[in-house]
């Protein structure tokens, strides 16, 4: 879907897509493993003209175990708000 949106943007003469994904419902829905799987599927650096912010609340991030934190560190090229291995 994101690829389609980027293509539509470019074909419409715009410069690409900028997105924010609020990831916190994964935690409130008890879907932490699905979250890690989802983040694992995304590129660290997109080749398409997409700029993407994954937005978390810090208290939720602290629920991740070390393997989840490693995935976050591997799949994002910048992290702000300090998520550290326990």
């Amino acid at each position, binding site marked *: 879907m994101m690829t389609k949106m980027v293509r539509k943007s470019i074909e419409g003469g715009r410069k690409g897509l*900028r*997105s924010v*994904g609020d990831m916190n419902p994964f935690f409130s829905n008890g879907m932490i493993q699905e979250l890690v799987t989802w983040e694992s599927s995304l590129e660290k650096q*997109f080749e*398409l003209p997409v700029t993407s912010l*994954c937005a978390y609340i810090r208290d939720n991030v602290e629920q991740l175990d070390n393997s989840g934190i490693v995935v976050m560190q591997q*799949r994002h090229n910048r992290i702000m*708000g300090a998520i550290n291995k326990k």
Partner: protein
Amino acid sequence: MPGLNRFTLYREMKKIDPSLTACFLSAFEMHPEEFKKVFPSIADSVKTIIKKPVTISNLIKEINPFLRISAVARARKGEHFLIAFQTPQELIEQSLQFLKTGLVENGEDILLVTDELPKDRILEKIAKEWNVDASTLEANGRITLMTFREWHLIETNLTLKEARP
């Protein structure tokens, strides 16, 4: 720094990098309104004035929100980055600021996936704060707002039956 005071230095740095975020440290107590009167040209872009002396832990607490603002302002095309915000309000405000840059300054389309606010409230906020015709932009596909269920059900076929309503 020889020949430059902190304010001149700040102005010169801003010329090089307009997205620079700055916090000042001062031994003097200075109310933000007083600072605005004395330095009107830079007051809006200086995020805070921290009174010295300050401990390292308090300094970190003071500047952390502005590091997140800076991270948002410095986003580069193609980046996939993560920010852990302190509160849902900060998440919404900073996310909208990030998206505003895309739509208004960069000519990009924008997508926001959140359950934090209803879509009509988000559109109202965008219309009011960005001074744009948000409804038309949404109708034209320039702005896309989705809930968590809408995005992840379509995009990832996650089974949300197990998820709490």
